[in-house]
């Protein structure tokens, strides 16, 4: 019984180390291939449009509602001490420092990470990745690099957009529901925000982009066992990305807290 447990823990540990190693190698290869010609502009722009432009509606919806909910929930407490005007700063800070980067990353991991894994995984099980290699084309250069660059560019931009829309959600509730004046709301927002809040949020979002791309592509490239295997890889890709995004968010928040 105890031996079985030890075996299970050992097996899981080996799998964990193997996964970490494999994903790190993929990241290393991706970074190696980025500066190598040719620069696949067409593919990068296609991916940027898929990741960025096509994600705008869902990011708008979720950020707007989150901003509104944040304002409403805090109003619930703030009204008791007549401190509603601080809602502006609270919404802005929460969105810019935390919810903007994390929510955007989670949305993209679910929407784009899953589709990358399904696409790359299908290519793997139908031998298209082998075919790429037989045609003397490196699969990391051809498949991973354009997605990596597109994600690293688009996720911070989407995050900025989510910050603004979230702020707008808070503004709508603050000005139209809680009767804070426009001028006051804007003043309190700008007063609370510092450049550091924005750029730490953006730094986080770049790391989230790296996580989403590497996990999604790695899961796809190791998929096996037909449609079922691709399905399994896709689920695993989303779950792993979610966990890593939340865990690294905690890590970075602590890091920025102690560093500055």
């Amino acid at each position, binding site marked *: 019984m105890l031996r079985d447990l030890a075996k299970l823990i050992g097996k899981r540990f080996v799998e964990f180390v193997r996964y970490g190693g494999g994903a790190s190698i993929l990241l290393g290869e991706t970074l190696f291939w980025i500066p190598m010609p040719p620069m696949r502009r067409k593919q990068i722009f296609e991916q940027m449009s898929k990741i960025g432009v096509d994600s705008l509606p869902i990011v708008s919806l979720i950020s707007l509602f989150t901003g509104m909910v944040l304002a409403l929930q805090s109003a619930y407490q703030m009204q008791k001490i007549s401190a509603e005007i601080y809602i502006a700063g609270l919404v802005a800070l929460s969105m810019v420092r935390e919810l903007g980067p994390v929510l955007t990353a989670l949305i993209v991991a679910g929407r784009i990470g899953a589709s990358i894994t399904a696409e790359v995984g*299908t*290519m793997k099980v*139908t*031998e*298209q990745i*082998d*075919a*790429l*290699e*037989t*045609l*003397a*084309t*490196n699969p990391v250069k051809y498949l991973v690099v354009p997605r990596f660059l597109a994600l690293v560019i688009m996720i911070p931009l989407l995050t900025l957009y989510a910050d603004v829309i979230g702020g707008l959600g808070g503004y709508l509730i603050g000005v139209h529901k809680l009767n804070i004046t426009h001028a006051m709301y804007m003043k309190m927002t700008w007063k609370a925000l510092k450049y550091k809040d924005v750029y730490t949020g953006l730094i986080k979002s770049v790391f989230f982009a790296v996580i989403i791309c590497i996990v999604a592509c790695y899961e796809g490239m190791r998929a096996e066992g037909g449609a079922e295997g691709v399905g399994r890889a896709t689920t695993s890709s989303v779950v792993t990305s979610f966990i890593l995004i939340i865990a690294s968010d905690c890590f970075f928040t602590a890091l920025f807290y102690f560093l500055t």
Partner: protein
Amino acid sequence: MIEIINVSKSFDGHKELDNLNLNIKTGESTVIIGRSGCGKSVLLKHIIGLLKPDSGHVLIDGKDITRMDEKELSAVRLKFGMLFQGAALFDSLNILENVGFALIEHTNTPRADIIKRVKESLTLVGLKDIEYKKPAELSGGMRKRVGLARAILVRPEIMLYDEPTTGVDPIMGDSINDLIIKLHTKLNVTSIAVTHDMISAYKIADRVAMLYNGKIVADGTPDEIKNTKDPIVRQFITGAGTGPITEGIDFEHLV
């Protein structure tokens, strides 16, 4: 000349190739036969360097590809053309981009020339006017032909075929066999095919080798294989349900 020397490969503790040795002469058409899942495709993937052996060497024209880096291997791979079992066409690209892939990726050939070369390749495999279709719009047989057209575009010296007739009807299968023979003679390539389709094997092979339990257990001309007394080979080529290959396996419960 392709030399496979003492190659072993295991997956999850199961030995797919076990100290395997095989030499293939330039210009020869070799067919490797064996049961499904016996490691034929694994062997093929070792020849083109898609898989690296656990031990042993694969020499292409005297150069060991198991020790090559990515760049050297890419250069060697351009000598090869490979037809995959499911054709492995790129879903996101149209037929023109699929067939012309190597030229688009690795050369600065003008688009008009690429279209011309792609059309030539497609004509060689008996297809026309499908350049702007997507692979999903084609039948299984047509996809295989497109896969073949893609493989021969850069005029390879060595052609590898993974189960060329699997998944297509017998008539299409036979026309693919004819194509393989045509390419072999017309383009003067070294052909290596793996299959369990004996009709195809007899038709396209100058030489047949049988893979069994990770080793080459028989090697000869189609006639020699046809007339062999080796019980393992006999059972396989005649497709008998009982014999040394299936010894100890009870098929009764399937009936």
